[in-house]
């Protein structure tokens, strides 16, 4: 999604001179589609995320649309107060682009695992929060939201080749995209966990359980109407996310069920403990934290039995 983001932004920048790309010294082999084409509008601020976001506030006040790029932990956590007191407080079109949701930087350890970024961004009123499931949806999401009047947080994956089956690059703000039909249980997925959700659905099918899978790519403003409509038809919904279960999609869906008074039960598949220092591949870590396709399938089967 990183490279797709950069090339999409470069396309937009041809026609709109307000677009700037700032980076906290990250984006090797990712941002070149933009930086090669617009060297004057590409600003490496150095390893200084707080300053990057603070600057973006000053740039946006003067009419620019700055995109602030870093690994999602640094872009969201290190700069959080600058995001809150800057673009959110001033309602300015600053874009925070966090790369590597969940365990995508698997071998790099906890410092590189954004597990709370969506929660932190989602609780800020006025912040649009987007977590695409694949690179095609990332492109559609950037095209649909880059010029929003207020701030936007993008949680982007690293993968620029894997397509989520059934998604076909669809994106609409405040909508949920259904990518697989099924009548027994509804899986609601965020970001690249859509792939784990689809894998779980295939395993469940072998056990005779028909699982629908949907992608929730807009976390704020929430796609409440779609969520309520979809969940009304199922006895069980399961959220699947590479994020702590508190704050992210699991919380959003729990809030939606409670506020709409739905009878649907909820199973939240996500991260429940602080990673203990054992690192490994993304697949290994999904397994360790119970969000692999197999484990999600097992949890859902148990909840339905």
């Amino acid at each position: 999604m990183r490279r797709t983001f950069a090339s999409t932004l470069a396309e937009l920048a041809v026609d709109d001179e307000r677009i700037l790309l700032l980076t906290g010294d990250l984006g090797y082999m990712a941002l070149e589609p933009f930086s090669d084409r617009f060297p004057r509008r590409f600003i490496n601020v150095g390893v200084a995320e707080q300053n990057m976001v603070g600057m973006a506030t000053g740039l946006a006040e003067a009419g620019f649309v700055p995109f602030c790029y870093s690994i999602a932990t640094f872009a969201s956590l290190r700069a959080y107060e600058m995001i809150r007191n800057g673009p959110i407080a001033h309602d300015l079109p600053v874009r925070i682009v966090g790369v590597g949701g969940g365990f995508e930087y698997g071998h790099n350890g906890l410092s590189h695992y954004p597990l709370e970024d969506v929660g932190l961004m989602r609780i800020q009123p006025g912040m649009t929060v987007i977590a695409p499931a694949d690179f095609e949806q990332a492109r559609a999401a950037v095209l649909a939201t880059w010029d929003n009047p207020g701030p936007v947080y993008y949680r982007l994956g690293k993968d620029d080749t894997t397509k989520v089956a059934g998604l076909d690059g669809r994106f609409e703000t405040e909508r949920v995209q259904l990518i697989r039909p099924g009548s027994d249980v509804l899986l609601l997925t965020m970001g690249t966990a859509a792939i784990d959700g689809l894998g779980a659905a295939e395993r469940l099918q072998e056990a005779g359980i028909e699982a629908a899978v949907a992608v929730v790519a807009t976390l704020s403003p929430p796609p409440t109407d779609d969520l309520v409509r979809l969940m009304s038809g199922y006895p069980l919904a399961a959220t699947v996310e590479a994020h702590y279960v508190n704050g992210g999609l699991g919380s959003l869906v729990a809030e939606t069920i409670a506020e709409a008074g739905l009878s649907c039960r909820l199973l939240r598949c996500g991260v429940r403990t602080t990673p203990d220092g054992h690192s490994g591949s993304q697949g290994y870590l999904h397994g360790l934290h119970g969000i692999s396709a197999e484990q999600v399938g097992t949890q859902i089967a148990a909840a339905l039995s």
Partner: protein
Amino acid sequence: MDASAVRRIILEQSKRANVGHIGSALSVADIVWALYDRVLRISDPADPERDRFVMSKGHAVLALYAALHLRGWLSAEELNTYAADATLLGMHPEHRVAGIDFSTGSLGHGLSIGCGSALAARLSGSPRRTFVLLSDAECNEGSVWEAAMFAAHHRLGNLVAVIDMNGQQALGYTRDVLDLSSMADRWRAFGWDAQDVDGHDPDQIAGAIARSDRVEGLPRVLVAETVFGKGVPFMEGELRWHYLPISDEELAVALDAVSETAV
């Protein structure tokens, strides 16, 4: 008119609202007035081409309200809502107030905003300048130095920082909390054109900003030596005036003192 008018407003409004932060506002009164009376190019606070001002030490905002009022951009009625219910004139700047460019309050944020503002002017080919007022203790914040590095590396010559060196911070003297001595040298080491000035001499402040012998292209910092509570002898250098509101008796003495020092 001079900064004594700013000081009178600071004292009267603090009394009316029964709130503190008086010492800090008095400390920057001359700096803020020098900027608004002689330096900032602002024909209309809504003009996109105006100079920008970031009050990074937001807790001294009453000096800014006073300057905006004296410039005619903030009515007496509005000023009299300072620190009242339902006002936009709180104890830190709010950008929804006409004439206030940025909301601040969390120290260490303003110089970054200023860098962005100055860079925006350069990218747009605009001659507008950006001024940022920092407190000395604000330089405890690491983010200030992130911004300092950026401004020097990118030679933001349209950016001016002024540091209110009153030597005090919330719980003590800066020399006892985190020593800030040789402040101008610190900024020079970061690549800035740094100059020590008397922070209570508007001529020096305005002159330092206008001076022609400077190295072109470097961001500038004025290290402005100030006295906390300046102009009111019983407040000068006294930490408690970061917190305390002022009594009727104290107000009378303070206003007398401010009038006597008026130029």
